[in-house]
């Protein structure tokens, strides 16, 4: 373990550990203010510079929340599994932060790394991403189980069922991009979209992006799929019994998972750091990457303020009966289009139009099929 290797690992990882949690703090502030404005209210606007009356639009609120959570008493229910109660937030946080390393974020200080850190130029970055995101389900189970609370357990079971069901459309829509690029390497995928040939501008790419985004909302338990952590359902679901800093760790883990999945969506579909001015100033690619992640996060916050929550059976039906067949059809169409790609512009235009129509009408048909048929209400006792 040479010192240069250690120094280079630190240069590569510590900025991520600094930037993303501060982005998390900023995002919680943005979310609270944006949701408040959507709901005809103001949001936090009193905390600002400590010990003064200067309230910088409530920007001190995340810091105040963090300090508050540090000082809260750590309550572990009697008879709960103490080891797993402690491990669950850690196992929720570590995969989320680990996965941030696989994103092709080129910070300007990357050129100071002399020893090539092979770990981050993984050949199979995309599949590692999905593998490590899958460990989140384990953390949820640990949290629900270790609380010794049957409602937490139920909430945890529902959360795991939701996450496992939505992993399949998530991976299948990423498979399209991998198929079209021919490599699992994130850097290859980023360079295949150069020249504004982003995958989101193709019909199958657009459908894949939509499916990926919806499945990402469900994976990170965001509205409208936030049944596991909604307050009107089982209090807080699997993290009911968590107080203080462990809850803060869960919260942090959820938001960093949101950043990570948005980062993957940007890499796969939105061109990964491409934008005007990158050719002249290479450092701008990191800025564009973060800007695109932030745009996706704003979309998530917007959806949270708009849509009501889905019921658990509606959620599962949506994953299995709508997203899954649509993503498989999408793979077929993308493969077909890839095979016909060298046949001239007329064939290409025809394939694009055909794919758009097929995808749209299949989606309509699937949507009609998976609606529950309206039956007259039957009462068991009231007849």
């Amino acid at each position, binding site marked *: 373990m040479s010192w240069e290797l250690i120094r280079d690992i630190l240069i590569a990882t510590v900025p991520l550990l600094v930037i993303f949690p501060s982005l998390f703090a900023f995002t919680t502030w943005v979310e609270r203010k944006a949701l408040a*404005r*959507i709901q*005809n209210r103001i949001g936090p606007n009193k905390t600002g510079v400590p010990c003064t009356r200067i309230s910088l639009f409530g920007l001190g609120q995340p810091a105040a929340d963090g300090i508050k959570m540090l000082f809260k008493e750590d309550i572990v229910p009697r008879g709960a599994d103490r080891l797993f109660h402690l491990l669950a937030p850690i196992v929720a946080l570590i995969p989320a932060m680990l996965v941030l390393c696989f994103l092709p974020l080129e910070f300007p200080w990357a050129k100071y790394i002399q020893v090539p850190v092979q770990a981050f130029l993984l050949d199979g970055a995309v599949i590692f991403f999905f593998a490590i995101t899958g460990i989140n389900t384990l953390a949820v189970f640990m949290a629900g189980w270790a609380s010794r609370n049957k409602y937490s357990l139920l909430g945890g079971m529902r959360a795991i069922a939701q996450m496992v069901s939505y992993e399949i459309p998530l991976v299948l829509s990423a498979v399209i991009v991998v198929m079209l690029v021919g490599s699992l390497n994130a850097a290859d995928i980023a360079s295949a979209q150069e020249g504004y040939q982003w995958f989101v501008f193709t019909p199958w790419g657009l459908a894949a992006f939509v499916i990926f985004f919806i499945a990402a909302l469900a994976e990170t338990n965001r509205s409208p799929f936030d049944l596991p952590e909604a307050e009107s359902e089982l209090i807080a679901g699997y993290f009911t019994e968590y107080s203080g800093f462990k809850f803060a760790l869960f919260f942090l883990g959820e938001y960093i998972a949101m950043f990570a999945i948005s980062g993957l969506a940007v890499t796969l579909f939105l061109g990964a750091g491409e934008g005007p001015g990158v050719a002249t100033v290479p450092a701008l690619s990191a800025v564009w990457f973060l800007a695109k992640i932030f745009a996706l996060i704003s979309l998530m916050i917007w*959806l949270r*303020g*708009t849509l009501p929550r889905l019921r658990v059976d509606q959620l599962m039906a949506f994953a299995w009966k709508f997203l899954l067949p649509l993503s498989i059809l999408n793979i077929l169409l993308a493969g077909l289009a890839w095979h016909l790609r060298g046949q001239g512009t007329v064939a290409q235009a025809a394939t694009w139009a055909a794919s758009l129509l097929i995808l749209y009408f299949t989606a309509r048909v699937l949507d009609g099929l998976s609606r529950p048929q309206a039956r007259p209400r039957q009462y068991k006792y009231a007849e």
Partner: protein
Amino acid sequence: MSLLGGGIFKGMAVTLRNFVGSYFKKERLVTNDYAWQPEGDSELPQRASEYPKEQGEQLSDTTTVTNYSRNFPMLLHDGTEGSNPMDTIRCVACQICERECPPQCIYIEKMYDENGKYIKSPAKFDIDVSVCMSCQICVEVCPFDAIVMNSQFELSTPDRFDGLLLRRDDLLKSNNYYHQIHPEEAAARDQKIADEKAAKEAKKKAAAEAAKKKAAEKSKAEAEVKAKEAEGSAATESDGKQEAAE
């Protein structure tokens, strides 16, 4: 043939409009930002009943309370602006609503006069709105249409025990106010009361007529019976005469 997911887009447009509009228009941001210290004249009401009474009981034009919204019950009286509500109160303190109320939030005491005779009026009618669940069962079971649902919602007080107990005088509202907030329901209720009254009158009239007819028939029947008896006795006498002749 609407766009797939079109409802979601419409919803997102609504929220976006609300978000952007909340920076420019006051009615899209109805929250009052309390200053660091309360100003002198913006004292909060101490009791839930101290909020503005009866001029529609709504604060501003953008408070959207529809004709179908309901919050907590109110007692009806048929009086006008200046009259004493207790003169025309419909409630007779039968205590049916008190008994049927599921969380038992109603407390009624009957009114008695000096001799201890029961007057058909409530002396006390308290509803604890921190307990009331707005189920409307009291409205359904009241035989006198005396209790209906109000839609006023600005009931916050600093005192969560006594401040949220609405007394009889706080609950009394006029029928005109009821027509203002729930026009269709109030009209239907008035119609029902009028119909019942008309039906009762008609029944009384019909009963009176039937009684008269019965009395007339009875006297006619008695007269006929008397006439028959007279004929019958005459007939038997003539029969007896004929037999004697043979």
